[in-house]
Every structure is written in C-alpha cells, then in structure tokens.
C-alpha cells in the first residue's frame, strides 16, 4: 500500500522542516521526503497544494466517556471527532465509570479502540483505587496493560500522605504522575473564578489559591521525591510563575493548558453561558495573557483540547447546576493556529505544542515526519475558515464556548499508519 502526498507544505517541528516537498508513504511508514522514488509514479496521490502536511496532532487530555458514560459520548463518536480534528494520538484520563484502575478495564479499552479507526489511544491510569484518594492502584500492572502515566483526573486527593506515597510508588518505576492542581476545600463547590463576574452574577467562587496552594504542594513533593510530574490545565498567572520557578530549579515538571483557557476569560460567561462552565474556571484577562505568554517562553509545554463531551440536558440547567466541560477535539488545531497567529508565531512553532512536545511528554515515538516513522499525518488548509455548529462537530458533545464562531484551519485528511481515517467531504 503506497501513497504519495504531493505539493504540500511539510511542517515538522522536531526535524525543523518547513518546506514544500512531496512525501511518500509505504507499508504505513514515511519512506521518502523530497525526491520521489520511481515505484511511486503510479500510486494513489493526495494533492496537498496550498495545504500544510504536518505530524498528526497529539492531545494530552480527551475524555472518551467509555466505559460507563456512553450517554455522553461513545468511543466511535469521539474517535471520529478526533480524526476530523487531525488528531492521531490521544491520552485519556481515568475518570470513566468505573475509573481506569484495573488492568482489565484498560485492556478492554485498548481492545475496543483498536477495532475502530486506529487512532492511538493512551490511557492514563488511576493513581488510586476508584479515584477515592485512599489506596494505591496496581500501577505496574496497569502500565503492562497499556497505561502511559497515572493521574487523579479531577478528583481530589485530600490526604497529602496518600499523594506523597503515590508519588513515591510511581517514581519507583519512573512513571509519570499527572495532576491538575486543585485544593478541594478552597474550591468549596465553586463554579466560577473568584472575581468580578462571579461577584456580579452571584456565582459561587473558586479562588486562584485553590490552584496555587495545591500546585505548591505538588512542587514541594516533586522536589523531595524527584518523581516526574505533568501538571494538567493550569488556569492562572500565578501558576505560570510558580511553574517557571520550578523549571528554573530543574525540577522534572511539565505543564499544559487547555484551548479554552488560552482564548477565553471569565468575561465570556456573559449572562450565565453554561458552555463557559469549565474546570478549572475561566479566570481573568491577565491570567489568560500570562497563559498565552507562558506557552511561548516554554513555561507551559503543550496545549490540550481538554475534551469533555456533555449531553445537552446537562448544560440546559442554571449555571451552578450545569456540568462543567467543553468539547474540544475538533477545535484543538484551529484554536492553536488562532493563538499562534495572534502571537505572531510561525506555523512550525505553533504546531510544536500539539505535536512534538506532547509526544515527548507521553514518551511516545510520534509527532514527527522522520524517514521510517509511522505515517501519522494531518493535512490541513491553513487559510480556510470553518464555522463551529452542532452539525459541523462530529463529537457527541456539542458543548463549546466557541459555538457559532468562524475558526481558522480546516483539516482535509488525517492518516494513521498510512491509512486515511478522515477525509473532508467537500
């Protein structure tokens, strides 16, 4: 099975390549770039003129809702959405029902995803049993079943002793621990940033210190234990500053931010727009600007979609009762391009945070277009705009603050292992 992608602008951050070149695929791998071997004269061709050909995107946080939460979304719908978003690898957090805390569940998930469109799904195992924050999981067994890291999703670990022990245990095997910092008592069942908008609308507030105090604990434990930690979805300027200091001290910490927090602030809640009910909450404009800048100076390593498909009914409630989260798989590319463009970043630098860097955080061989690499590829038209509507989203979750907006970057093809798993129909 051979395939030739002609005339495309190849952008590969890892190999520092940005040039119009042809790319040849055989047996699922990239076999030639630039000069076309003779055996490709008669094979299927994708003409990618005026389009960008880049490594398939890698998403660090996509909830697929299986097992247990199929009423919100299914693996089929969400992996289709990922393909339509140009994503070829994704990590899914353990907050399923039951949580991914036993090898059997992970094996079943891996098996289910393999039978679908071949997108690489990397489960993040639960750090504690049932995500209750009480007993450690069988991390080594879970790794053998396919988990690439361990996290506590959005569930709190109130007992710091348990968190410390879990970090020690994970570090025994050099596993990476993924944590979203939130001190649950300070969050105090809040639903919006403790600022002007929550005050005006009378919404229960979540102060910034709910994030920074938890982050401070994490950083101190990393300093003691040396465990590799990936900090998920920070939301505040203060957190950016703390991560920056931690990195200056050479602590083994990486960090990501969601597409939503990169573009939005508390102001977008307007008058109770439940699509802006997110975890962590959207904070103020200074926070947003610090996140945007932190991503450029490398304090924040990567962008994730923070994909959380939610059924309509759960958003058709008063703000405080609505379910938090936004659909994001199909917006990851567009919102990354939008950020890069507004920061005057080159495409190659913009794409780096959704290809090369997340691959290195996951420690997987992906996110580049090297000769011999698996042909996981995204082809998109950087000039085309598309409108976010319920019908343009393949995800079962139609919940996004960007509903109705025109966004840049239209995915034309997505390839996994040389197979076309998505082709834009028009």
């Amino acid at each position: 099975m051979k395939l030739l992608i002609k005339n495309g602008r190849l952008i590969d951050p890892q190999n520092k390549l940005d040039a119009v070149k042809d790319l040849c695929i055989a047996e699922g791998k990239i076999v030639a770039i630039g000069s076309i071997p003779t055996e490709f004269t008669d094979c299927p061709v994708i003409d990618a003129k005026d389009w960008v050909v880049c490594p398939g995107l890698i998403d660090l946080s996509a909830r697929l809702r299986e097992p247990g939460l199929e009423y919100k979304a299914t693996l089929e719908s969400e992996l289709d959405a990922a393909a339509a978003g140009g994503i070829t690898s994704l990590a899914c957090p353990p907050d399923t029902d039951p949580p991914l805390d036993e090898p059997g569940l992970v094996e079943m998930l891996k098996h289910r995803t393999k039978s679908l469109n071949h997108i690489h799904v990397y489960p993040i195992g639960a750090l504690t049993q049932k995500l209750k924050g009480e007993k450690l999981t069988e991390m080594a067994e879970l790794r053998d079943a396919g988990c690439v890291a361990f996290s506590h999703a959005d569930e709190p670990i109130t007992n710091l002793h348990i968190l410390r022990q879990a970090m020690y245990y994970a570090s025994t095997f050099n596993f990476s621990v993924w944590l979203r910092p939130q001190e649950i008592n300070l969050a105090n069942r809040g639903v919006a940033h403790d600022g002007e908008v929550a005050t005006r609308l009378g919404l229960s507030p979540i102060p910034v210190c709910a994030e920074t105090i938890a982050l401070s604990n994490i950083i101190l434990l990393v300093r003691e234990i040396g465990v590799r930690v990936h900090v998920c979805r920070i939301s505040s300027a203060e957190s950016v500053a703390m991560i920056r200091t931690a990195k200056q001290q050479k602590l083994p910490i990486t960090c990501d931010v969601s597409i939503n927090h990169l573009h939005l602030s508390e102001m977008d809640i307007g008058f109770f727009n439940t699509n802006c009910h997110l975890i962590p909450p959207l904070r103020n404009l200074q926070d947003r600007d610090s996140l945007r800048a932190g991503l450029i100076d490398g304090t924040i390593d990567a962008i994730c979609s923070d994909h959380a498909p939610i059924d309509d009914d759960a958003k058709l409630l008063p703000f405080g009762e609505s379910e938090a989260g936004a659909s994001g798989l199909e917006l990851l590319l567009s919102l990354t391009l939008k950020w890069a463009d507004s920061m005057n970043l080159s495409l190659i630098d913009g794409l780096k945070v959704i290809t090369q860097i997340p691959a290195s955080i996951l420690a997987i061989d992906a996110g580049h277009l090297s000769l011999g690499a698996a042909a996981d590829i995204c082809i998109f038209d950087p000039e085309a705009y598309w409108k976010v509507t319920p019908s343009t989203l393949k995800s079962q979750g139609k919940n996004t603050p960007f509903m109705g907006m025109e966004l840049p970057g239209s995915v034309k093809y997505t390839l996994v292992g040389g197979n076309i798993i998505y082709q834009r129909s028009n």
Partner: protein
Amino acid sequence: MNHQLQLNKNGELLHLLTIEGLPASILTLILDTAESFTGVTEREIKKIPLLRGKSIFNLFFEPSTRTRTTFEIAAKRLSADVLNLNIAVSAQSKGEALLDTVNNLSAMHADMFVVRHSQSGAAHMIASHVKPDIHVINAGDGRHAHPTQALLDMFTIRRYKQDFHNLRVAIVGDILHSRVARSQIHALSTLGVPEIRVVAPKTLLPNKVERLGVHVYHDMEKGLRDVDVVIMLRLQNERMQGANLPSNEEYFKYYGLTPEKLAKAKPDAIVMHPGPMNRGIEIDSVVADGGQSVILPQVTFGIAVRMAVMSILAGN
C-alpha cells in the same frame, strides 16, 4: 444568553430578570406606575381588571412566604388568575428537570411566570426557553438578583427622600450571599445615587465588590456617618456560625444596627430591611420599631411595585 433578552427590540420590558442593564427610564416607569397603584391598595374594593383572564404561575423552587404572598396579592388585585406551585416539594423531588417543569406549565397556557430558584441564573435560563408570549419575573435567583425587591426599595427611598441625586446610601450585612444587595446596588447607581456604601466584615463581601461601584467599609460607625438611607440585610441562619462569622453576639456588637450606631447617620435617615428580620442579630428592636424605620411601609409598597411590573409586562 444575554441580559437584553429582558427587553424587546423597542427597548420595552419583556421579562424582569435583573436590574443590571435596564435604563433609568424603565425603572422610573415602574416606580411611577406603582405610584398610581398605591391608591388601589388603599381602596375598599382593591381590584382593577387590568390582567383579567391572564394566568400567572408562581413557581417557587425555593421556599418563600412574604415574596410569594405579595406577588399573589398583586396579581389578584389586577384580577389575574394565580396558581402557586411550591416546586421545592413536588416535581424537583421527583427529579424532573427545571425546563421540563417549565415546558409542562407553559402547555397549561400560562401568561406569566414568577420564578424563585436557589441557583443564580435560573430565571435567565427559563426566560430564554419559554415561548415568546410568556413573561418571566425573577423573584430571586440564588445570589444573583431580586429585582422587584430592589424596585420596592427604590420606591420607598423615593417616597421618603424624593430625589436620588443627592443621597448617601449604606447597605449593611451579608453582601456576599445577597441577591437583594446586588439588585439594590444596580438600581441605586442606575437612578443616580452618587454614593453607595457597603458595610460588612470581609467574610461577607464578595471579591472585587468595589467593581460594582460601591465604597467598602468594615467599620460600621464610619460606614453610617452622614448617610441618608440605611439598608440592613438579613443574616441567614446558616451563615451565623462557622466559617463566615463566629457568633450572633459578636455580629450584633459590630454590625447590628443599634440606636447608637444609627446616630452616626443623618438625623432624618431612614432604616430599611427586606425582611424577615432577625431582631437582636442584625437590628435592634428599638430601631426596627422606631421612628426612622420604614420597614413596614416597604412591605405595603411591595404590592404596588409588583402590580406595576406585572401590568407593564402584560402590556408589552
């Protein structure tokens, strides 16, 4: 979802959800209309046929006696048919979704919903989903807004002080959890009150409250100095002890309205309270029943103001 959903394209009131964003002309129209109804409430036959044949549903997802009763009286004086639904103990406990409840009631040909709900934004959500000919009045949503209470307070202030443009008003107590305070602040600033103060300990003030256009005081004696209007807020039982406040006694000592503290205000200052009062906790009985108190007239005016809101909505 937009606050402008309470206005139609001609800028007339379709729903009353929040004071925020309403022009002074609409607030004044409501107050003037209420003024014309005060006569009705004092007549022997207290009914006028403005809303004859209209159905008004009181949807109370949260218990209330006073507000629900005044809405009911107001509707009946306008000759409307009133149905009280205490949903806190019916549909919600059966797990029926809020919008399903509203849709079912819409199918019974309601003309107006008066909604109280424990969640901020509930009335907005209902208003954005009902059929265009149904009007929604917010009778209190979470900590967000209680516009008719604020309007009746404005009515009271206007009655006793005539002009808003030279007043100093202090709102004292639990601003953090108070929908009444938020609506009062918007109403006072829209009507041109130059100085609005909030007086409370830091645990009862929301973050960035000064962005609402108020001056913050923690010392009540300073906060009341030379004010024309003192608005006391009710302290909810569940806030009295614990993480917000240590005790009733300490609260009363520092933030309760006593004759001594009231003496700091102007001699002709009026004292208001949205009720129900906790005597001896936020207000001394001597003050509550004293010559400067206008707390009972507030209740009476509440009926006229709610009649005004209902009749204006029904006409738009």
